[in-house]
């Protein structure tokens, strides 16, 4: 499986994403003799070969399952949580759109970084187009180069180990001929040093689009200045913010239930007090903690204020009390009072014994900033006589 085909059946040598959970996706290259070890057990590769992409398969022990997922640029990015220099999907998808990267596009990228954006655009340029990508950091270059080859992208991607800020973009490795790029993506610490070096590599017969990807505002300020100086137009700086939401169910706690519960508590307290009186306060009164100024946290104030007064096991007469309020209860055994919302019990979200509302929750930690995106275009060269 490469990133550029659509097969259904897994073959030896395919790159497969072993989907354990959203946060735990393991890329594996399927080799007969190998196996994948996870906390859910062992998955021998030879049981993976021949499976359909999308299949859920059990581990040898049967104690866990994984899904066999085909790689896409987005899933590949998801499976790289620990690499730096990732262009995440909300940014990369928008950049592809704004740079009008389409089949046939010729794109310059620097630096290659984790290769996440390279993968995203390689899907779009098709064999009719080409990607020129540059990485100055040698270990990262070597890793990316290998990945491009392994993933079947070498025909459409030329990767070059070079510091473009000093050495420019011309004559990329493994590529002869005019570059004629129509789109440029710069993810560099100082794009303003690279921008003046672009011109000779760009198409002149059409609009060229550029995007500079910089985390800091000061970088943007310098970039905008340089783009202006270099004749770029329609300069626009934007930020993409993105959030992830999950669906949940929220229990409906009606006021009427609360009133009923308070009545029940009161009833049981009065009843308990009566019994106690009869028994001449034989049971020791536990001090009701003052809820204000109490040093220990409690899950709910009610348990501590109710239980000292009427604990079911405390007296035999409790049985009577228990009967008298039983009609309020949905739990028959060990009745602890009218409990409309299952306090103190483990309630599964969406339990049909309770009423629920659909709600959405944001992820606990959001990516509040990735980079500022500075876009601009360079119009085609004037080739026509001025009409004036």
């Amino acid at each position, binding site marked *: 499986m490469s990133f550029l085909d*659509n097969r*259904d059946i897994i073959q030896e040598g395919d790159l497969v994403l072993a*989907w354990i959970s*959203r946060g735990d996706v393991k890329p594996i290259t399927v080799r007969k003799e190998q196996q994948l070890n996870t906390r859910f057990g062992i998955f021998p590769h030879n049981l993976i070969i021949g499976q*359909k*992409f*999308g*299949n*859920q398969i*059990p581990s040898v022990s*049967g104690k866990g399952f994984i899904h*066999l*997922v*085909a790689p*896409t*640029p*987005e899933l590949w990015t998801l499976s790289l949580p620990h690499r730096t220099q990732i262009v995440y*999907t*909300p940014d*990369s*998808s*928008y950049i*592809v*759109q*704004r740079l*009008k990267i*389409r*089949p046939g596009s010729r794109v310059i990228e620097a630096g290659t970084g984790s290769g996440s954006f390279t993968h995203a655009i390689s899907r*779009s340029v*098709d064999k009719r187009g080409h990607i020129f990508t540059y990485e100055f950091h040698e270990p990262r270059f070597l890793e990316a180069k290998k990945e491009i080859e392994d993933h079947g992208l070498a025909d459409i991607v030329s990767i070059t180990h070079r510091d473009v800020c000093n050495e420019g973009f011309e004559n990329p490795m493994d590529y002869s001929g005019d570059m004629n790029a129509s789109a440029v993506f710069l993810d560099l610490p100082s794009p303003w040093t690279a921008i003046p070096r672009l011109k000779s590599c760009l198409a002149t017969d*059409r*609009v060229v689009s550029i995007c500079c990807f910089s985390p800091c*505002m000061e970088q*943007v*300020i310098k970039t905008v200045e340089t783009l202006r100086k270099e004749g770029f*137009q*329609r*300069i*626009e*700086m*934007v*930020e*993409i913010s*993105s*959030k*992830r*939401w*999950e*669906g949940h*169910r929220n229990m409906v706690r009606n006021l009427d239930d609360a009133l009923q519960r308070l009545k029940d508590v009161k009833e049981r307290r009065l009843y308990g007090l009566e019994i106690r009186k009869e028994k001449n306060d034989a049971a020791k009164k536990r001090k009701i903690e003052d809820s204000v100024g109490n040093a220990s946290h409690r899950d709910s104030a009610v348990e501590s204020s109710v239980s000292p007064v009427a604990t079911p096991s405390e007296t035999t007469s409790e049985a009577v009390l228990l009967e008298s309020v039983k009609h309020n209860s949905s739990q028959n055994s060990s009745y602890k009072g009218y409990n409309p919302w299952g306090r103190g019990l483990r309630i599964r979200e*969406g339990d049909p014994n309770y009423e629920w509302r*659909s*709600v959405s929750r944001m992820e606990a930690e959001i990516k509040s900033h990735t980079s500022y995106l*500075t876009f601009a*275009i360079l*119009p*085609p060269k*004037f080739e026509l006589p001025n*009409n*004036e």
Partner: protein
Amino acid sequence: EFDQTHIKPGQYVMIRLPSENFRVLQLHPGQTVNLGKFGSFKVDDILNHPYGYTYEIGADNKLSIVNHNYELDNQDEPVSELAPHENNRELVDDSSVQGLSMAEIEELKKGGLSGKQIIEKVKTSHSSFDKKTAFSKEKYLKRKQQKFLNQFTPEPIGSAELIDIYLDKDASRIQNMSEESLALMLSLANVRPGGTYLVVDDISGLLVGAMMERMGGEGLIVVAHDNEHPNLDGLRYMNYSQGLIAKMIKTVNWLEFFEPSEIEPFEEKTTEELQQLKSNQRGQYYRRRTRYNDSVTVQNLISNSGFDGLLVATGLHLASLIPRIIPAVGGSRPIVMFSETKELLTETTLVLHKDFRVISPTILETRLRKYQTLPGRMHPHMTSRGGGGYVLWGIRVFPDENANA
């Protein structure tokens, strides 16, 4: 076909104006286009030019290509400093200080003065101009520039421009979809040349048109719809040929989708039978055969989980629709849907969570924030359009029957 680099006769184009408004025109050779207060120009003067030049309309509607559109005249002056006392303290801003009336300005324009020349005149005739701060000077100039520069830029109409057109005209026709939401859908759905996609496009063809851009003429888009014909009105602006549309797009209504028996049967005729037909009957026969073959193709894709992705932007109730079309989607292929409101997607994820055929159903919200980039005055735009929609993304899988017991 896909070369949107040069302006060709008969094409729809977007004419961007310095006011940041635009016009959409179909360019017919020989015609003259009237841009109202910005002047007129002859279509022939721009035909076959590359897209992206900025033209200034001079006297007698002559065009000249200019370099710095939408940019400030004084960009090289050091206005990046906010000097402490440039604060408009003494400035009284009423209309009496503006030395030139709109009528006078119109006269100047008719007299053939260029936009720059007019702005210069406005500046010198504005009695309190020198009291303005650098900041408000620039704002003022920008405003004037937008009014007086007789400039325009023709641009090809792609999915981005189609969004602009609909947001300007009637945003509900594209369910208020933002460009960033559209872009996210296309990436998450892994749209690429050669793919075969099932699409529900109740947004005037925006989704289909954007997919065609990304597919470059290769692959198949099956459009499922709830009427006799899908509404793909927006496609016409994108200048795709009827041939390309016929090649790449097949349509199927939901009744045909779910009840293949409803497809009209078709009987193949022998060569002899065909020869006996009149030519218009033969034409009808071939059209019906094409329609039938398309139906068979589509039915095969549906019943063999043959789609490489599902993209949905519909007015139908997602939570009940999606579970019924999941079977048509191939293993490990993305399922992506759009909604203007998050609640409808929340409902759908809750349904999918219980349905083990889609893993990791996630709602994504992506929002663009634009900045002002004037030197020394970098800040986000003060106001922006609300809305833009939400995207639900999941992956189609084949659950193991023992896994979710």
